[in-house]
């Protein structure tokens, strides 16, 4: 029976940022006044977090791996299982990366349209419905924040250059 279950990997992954952040506490500028220096509180947290992660690691090692984790890992299966969240994150990342170029309004409409189509499926009817939903809903939110709450959203190079 494999002693390495999913929790073991998570505990190890948790210990890594603890180490990185603890090392980073030595780059925090020290000051000559005050009892609690700027690095002291983060160090207290990181020591506690590291101890807890170690306890979690030991707990996970003591526990036998559940049946499903013994099954071989399949990238195709994982992608299929998390298809919708992956679409969401992928498209949201694209929306963020193109925000300066497309702006909030066009980028937002495209994000919602693409996400609806990716999850809801492609058909002639769906494309029309999704486009209408994206334009009306994002347009309404954009207008509400812009005109009622006075928020200035990124226009994007496309609109600026028009």
């Amino acid at each position, binding site marked *: 029976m494999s002693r390495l279950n999913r929790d073991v990997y998570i505990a190890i992954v948790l210990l890594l940022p603890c180490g990185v952040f603890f090392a980073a506490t030595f780059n925090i500028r020290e000051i000559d006044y*005050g009892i609690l220096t700027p690095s002291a509180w983060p160090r207290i947290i990181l020591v506690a977090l590291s101890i*807890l992660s170690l306890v979690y690691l030991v707990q996970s090692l003591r526990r036998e791996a559940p049946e499903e984790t013994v099954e071989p890992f399949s990238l195709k299966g994982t992608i299929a299982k998390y298809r919708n969240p992956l679409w969401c994150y992928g498209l949201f990342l694209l929306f963020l990366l193109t925000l300066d170029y497309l702006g909030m309004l066009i980028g937002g409409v495209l994000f919602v349209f693409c996400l609806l189509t990716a999850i*809801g499926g492609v058909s002639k009817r769906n494309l029309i419905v999704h486009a209408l939903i994206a334009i009306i809903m994002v347009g309404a939110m954009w207008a509400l924040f812009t005109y009622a709450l006075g928020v200035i959203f990124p226009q994007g190079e496309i609109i600026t250059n028009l």
Partner: protein
Amino acid sequence: MLFDNIAAAFHELFVVETIFLMMVGVVAGLIAGGVPGFTIAMAVVLTLPFTFGMDAVQGLAVMMGVFVGGLSGGLMSGILTGIPGTPSSVATTFDGFPMARAGRPGFALGLGVWSSFFGGIISAVLLVTLAPQLARIGLEFQQWDYFSLVLFALTITASLSGENLVKGLIAGGLGLLVATVGEDEINGVARFHFGNEALKQGFGFLPVLIGLFAFSQLLSDLQDRVKARQSLAEGGGVAVKIEHRKAAVAVLRRWANLLRSSLIGVFTGILPAAGSSISNILAYDQAKKASKEPEKFGTGYEDGIIAPESANNATAGGALITMMALGIPGDIVTAVMLGALLIHDVIPSPTFITETPVLAYSLFLAFFVANFMMLALQSYTLRLFVLVTRVRMYILASIILAYCAIGVFALSNIAFDIWTLFWFGILGYLMRIFGFPLAPMILGVVLGRIAEQWLARSLARSEDLGYFFTSPWSLFFLILAAFSIFFSKYQADRGRKSWTLVYPAVFMISLSLPAFMMGGPVRIGLGILLIAMGIRSLYKHHRNGWKIDPTKSDAPQLREG
């Protein structure tokens, strides 16, 4: 003085714009609470960007409307479709759905609405009377006591919010760590920026919260490809006429159940971390135990609707008591409210009510008024709810994701906040998948800077760490924190292992120590009582030959769902 404050709050709150916005908030809460997959916390979190441009009273009144509406909204889907809209209405479905299927949906809804209303009003009265008293006790707190109180809030949340205590504590620690990124509020030194200019300012509290909670929740809702394409309540509910008069009379006739359940709700709410998802089940269980007809529960029995619905609304008042009197959030929703107060430069503490009485009493009043609004608007919202339940999940989720980005940007007009939303959305989703509770992390983010400030103040006053153990209130909270760490283990082992027999006794005897240290006849008397109860418990088990009672393990578990 009390009436002066209420009058001033009345003047502040009863402005046409504020009342209108509160009504919109109540309707939004009722809809969000009614939609399965959307929680009250999510509705309150998503309301925050709208309230940012408002003043503190108006913004918090709107959030209060969403909060109260959300607590009552869950009963609509629970009764009409059998799917609880929020975890707060799980127990409502046990009798609400059978009653609706038996051809009495209007009466079932009426019972739910009126129980929610009376539960809310009872807790509003207790909020107004208890919060100032608790705050008066809080005025005795010194720097060490506050720090220990925050520590207790974190440990009890970690203990109650998940199957694995260590995971809960790790989540709390991660929240505290996130709060340290950026400029330190005591010395103004930037921490953990890794050369990134945007990180020098730290993470915005709201983008972190919306990412961790709302963004990740939406992705969890979309994960199932089949369910994502279904309507929110497949088969949907149909609009029915709520039988108000008949239901109100029925609820008042069962006043003992109403009162007991409301009190269970209030006291569950006062306990940090134990929210309405716990109180509704506890109240249902107690109502069944106290009933002369327990066999009728689960078949569409009136008491089975009254108990959970009055308890879940009453929990809101309890959670607000702790937040307003001590500055410690009772659950995720009040953690968001606390965050909203911090945004408006108001720091809840025991002096909050005395120093900002108009704001404090406006909140009391808003909670009171929101319950009346909920009662008046529920019938109209029911039609809207039926329409919303016909929308497919992926459509609603996609629109809300876009709204998250727009709302988060609107907070500070910087694109970095949307990146924060994105990264914490991923973190929140991974935490959900790997079984880490989000509540302790959110509390850690909210309380991290407050804890550091109190620690700094404690050390500035004296470098002697012994004060944390010699100050009575600090010792009191540290004892509570220590026992709360073992509480989940105690719950799991109760009725199975012998050590659980001594846990309550040792807890009571330990708590008597700070009570004696505090002095005064009442507290010393309380200390003696605690010792007597502890000894009685030990003696009882000794007489029984330290036998374990396996039936105890069937008791309802005090744990967030």
